[in-house]
């Protein structure tokens, strides 16, 4: 009817947009200022963050369903989910998981005992340092996976070389970090121990070991990362059970769905152990956390 209406609605629209913009910029600025950077993201932000993975999943599913992505290259998410359920129901996945977990647990325990044991010997005495540290520093230069041929020659193709590879990978991060942690304990606190007339065992128990703990936990996290990696590689060699075997077996039959289920299981295991270490850190380093928060 008149040219007023569109221009009015346009200006309304503009105003509305300006208000929206200023309002949202305040909203965005506030949580950072008030609660610091660690503050939980507002729900809308969390939604935005899952949007792109969901979109990728959708594209993947569409490409699979329409045949653009052939199943021998990569199965569709729906197929993978169904396969995961089947493998779980038939006990195949749980059995493979059990075998792999046992290897990881044995290898990790062995490697941790050796790594931390040697770190104590090297960290707590000069003689121990001279005896243990140079060979450890030399050995750590060896590429872990380059040792596989030797391990096969030494230990055959059974469980032993797999456990040994995990143990070897675990031992070094724990050794290096624990040793550095022990040596890095504040000299002023050691002096305090002297003034308080602490015996050597008491000094080690109350000052040295707790002082080395934060660094040891860093080593623990690193070593768990290496442990899973070593396990995955070790399970590719001549395994007749375990997650690696399940994956390799599936490759023979072009079952990309099973391969992906195996990979996701490995990933979940990694996330799980990382969460356990975080929990451990929160409990063991409570004296630090209070300070930080």
């Amino acid at each position: 009817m008149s040219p007023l209406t569109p221009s009015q609605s346009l200006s309304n629209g503009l105003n509305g947009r300006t208000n929206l913009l200023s309002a949202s910029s305040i909203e965005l600025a506030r949580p950072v200022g008030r609660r610091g950077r660690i503050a939980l993201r507002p729900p809308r932000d969390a939604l935005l963050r899952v949007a792109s993975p969901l979109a990728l999943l959708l594209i993947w599913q569409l490409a699979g369903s329409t045949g653009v992505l052939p199943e021998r290259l990569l199965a569709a998410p729906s197929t993978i989910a169904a396969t995961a359920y089947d493998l779980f129901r038939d006990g195949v996945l749980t059995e493979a998981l059990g075998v792999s977990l046992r290897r990881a647990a044995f290898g990790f325990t062995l490697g941790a005992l050796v790594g931390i044991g040697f770190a104590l010997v090297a960290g707590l005495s000069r003689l121990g340092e001279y005896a243990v540290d140079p060979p450890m520093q030399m050995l750590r230069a060896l590429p872990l996976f380059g040792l596989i041929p030797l391990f096969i020659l030494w230990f055959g193709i059974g469980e032993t070389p797999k456990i040994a590879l995990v143990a070897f990978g675990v031992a070094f991060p724990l050794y290096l970090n624990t040793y550095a942690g022990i040596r890095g304990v504040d000299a002023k606190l050691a002096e305090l121990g002297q003034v308080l007339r602490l015996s050597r065992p008491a000094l080690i128990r109350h000052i040295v070991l707790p002082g080395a703990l934060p660094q040891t936990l860093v080593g623990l996290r690193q070593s768990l990362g290496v442990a899973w990696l070593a396990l995955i590689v070790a399970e590719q060699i001549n395994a007749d059970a375990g997650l690696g075997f399940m994956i390799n077996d599936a490759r023979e039959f072009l079952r990309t769905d099973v391969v992906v289920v195996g990979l996701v299981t490995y990933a979940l295991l990694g996330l799980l152990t990382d969460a356990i270490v975080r929990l451990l850190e929160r409990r063991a380093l409570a004296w630090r956390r209070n300070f930080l928060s």
Partner: protein
Amino acid sequence: MATQLPELTAAARVRGLVKRFGDRTVLDGLDLEIGAGEFVALLGRSGSGKSTLLRALAGLEPISGGELEVPGTVAVAFQEPRLVPWKRVGANVTLGLDVPDPEAAAAAALEEVGLLGHRDAWPLTLSGGEAQRVSLARALVRRPSLLLLDEPFSALDALTRINVHRLVLDLWERHRPGVLLVTHDVDEALLLADRVLVLESGRIAHQTAVELDRPRQRDHAELIRLRSVLLERLGVAP
């Protein structure tokens, strides 16, 4: 511990103490006696060897020559409180203490410094003044006959420092250890000590008895006079 003499009335005796670092002689034939229950303050320019003397008395510094005799228990409060961060306040106080009931000992010592409520706190949550008070509680719970204070107030703000000064005097009057307070603060030395020493060229070059009742006023005429004497000895024009 080794030389416990029955007739001994000194908290510490030092004769002809020499300490060298490489070819640099820091303490050069130093003589010093701290009486039982006597509060001695040690002044000196930075690098004069004040802290070295204290560390030698604490058994932290091997000596190059002379004699050092500390008959009873020694306790130290350092410039930084040096609380063990992974032990709660109560456990810090009794660390290395061999008594039947450490819990009760910690409670009593913390009560004395007014921090009983912080017994279960982590050291890193304390303020500087609180941490230093815990450090004093840790020193005194050992019932020392010689208390070594290595500039323990220098990192505190002015108001906190006044309070901790009062606390130290209070604790000293109650427990009567011999005290060696190393400080660079002339006023602090004059407010607290029975005797003020000046360390220079590796020896006690000057000493002044401060015969005034405590608590002392900073603007007392005698203190003002002693201050200018000491400042002059320290090479600062009054």
